[in-house]
């Protein structure tokens, strides 16, 4: 009997005539852990994602700011499935998707906590590795923040996303009548598709730009936009748009 006890499955492995009821086409709710959810980007992403069919677990070192973010979300969307969780490892363990919304320099610390439970999961890298004076990147030209995160989490599916959009864009994803593009890069097809859905939910137009090394270009694009923003005073409400026929 012990043999059977752990070998039972739910259905026979054949294409067949299962009775399928007509009324349902529900999507299994995915759980997203947002690590660093009290920061400007983390809270902007969380607020916009709470409108989608997701369960959000928000964590941060700043509990006060985090609670305010949750209250804010609940106020604008009472049915939002969102809660705070004080341990990034626990949040990652429960999650299907992990958004690392901390500065590049803090990623190593986060990785130490979540590595064991992030195996095979989608990890979204949003960081732009700018130096303290905003006039250069701290990463070498032959790598990127996303690729460095992938090296630290070799068995996770790292995807670059949300790095070419400012926090302010999340409240105004349509600027001057045009929906802001949001570029995505990664090596796993299914993960790219899942993250494209997230980008769409947030309100941007997702564009898959290529494999993970394309992140180098994406991070440099934002570096350029930050510099231009400071030079021409875009007031943080600026984004990229590919014009095409």
């Amino acid at each position, binding site marked *: *009997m012990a*043999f*059977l*006890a*752990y*070998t*039972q*499955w*739910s*259905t*026979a*492995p*054949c*294409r*067949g005539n*299962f*009775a*399928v*009821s007509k*009324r*349902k*086409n*529900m*999507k*299994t*709710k995915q759980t997203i852990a947002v690590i660093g959810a009290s920061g400007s980007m983390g809270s902007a992403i969380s607020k916009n994602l709470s409108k989608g069919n997701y369960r959000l677990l928000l964590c941060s070192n700043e509990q006060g700011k985090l609670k305010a973010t949750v209250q804010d979300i609940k106020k604008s969307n009472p049915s939002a499935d969102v809660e705070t969780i004080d341990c990034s490892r*626990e949040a990652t*363990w*429960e*999650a*299907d998707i992990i958004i690392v919304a901390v500065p590049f320099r803090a990623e190593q610390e986060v990785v130490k906590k979540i590595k*064991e*439970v992030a*195996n*095979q*999961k989608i990890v979204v890298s949003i960081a732009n590795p700018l130096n303290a004076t905003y006039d250069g990147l701290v990463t070498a030209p032959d790598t990127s923040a996303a690729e460095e995160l992938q090296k630290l989490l070799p*068995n996770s599916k790292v995807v670059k996303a949300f790095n070419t959009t400012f926090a302010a864009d999340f409240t105004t994803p349509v600027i001057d009548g045009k929906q802001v593009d949001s570029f995505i890069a990664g090596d796993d097809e*299914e993960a790219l598709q899942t993250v494209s859905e997230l980008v769409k939910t947030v309100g941007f137009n997702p564009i898959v730009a290529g494999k993970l090394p394309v992140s180098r270009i994406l991070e440099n694009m934002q570096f350029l936009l930050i510099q231009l923003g400071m030079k021409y005073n875009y007031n943080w409400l600026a984004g990229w748009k590919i014009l095409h026929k």
Partner: protein
Amino acid sequence: MYELYFQNFRSKVPLSEEQQAMIQKNLAVKKLRKKQYLLQEGDVCKTIAFVEKGALRSYTVDESGAEHIIQFAIEGWFISDLYSFLTAEPATTNIDAIDHSELVLISKSAHEELLKKCSSYETFIRELITGAYIALQKRISSIISLPLEERYESFKAQYPDITQRVPQHMIASYMGLTPETLSRVRRRIAVGK
């Protein structure tokens, strides 16, 4: 996190350290809270789950909203909508947690890669599917041929842990009975003894 999974594996198929490392690389771990879904009907089932801790059930819901439990899974068991997993057609079942649970998950792409690359994994899966087929056959045979009392007694004998852990109304649903009928069956058994 993976202890029971590999303990289970080794009880059926020998496994080297290298093979274990190769398999573990491809596994995900996930915590599920009580009543949370692993899969909802209509969605494509993308994983096979192994229960390290906790308990899950798979079930269908009919037009009147009544639930029909197909399978339970407690520690040491696998659960999935195998039909959906293998064909990529929408799932016909729901899977949710009866208790707070810790799962080991394998995705379809990882599963297929391991089937090709790791002979131990291939053997393990074949054993699982064979066992699942036998279990399914026994379940069908019991439903169509045994009196209710015997069906309940045989369920209890076969799965004593589940009888302890799972509420009676769910066992009734698994047996295709109303809770009242199951309660009568249990009374008859008690009186008979």
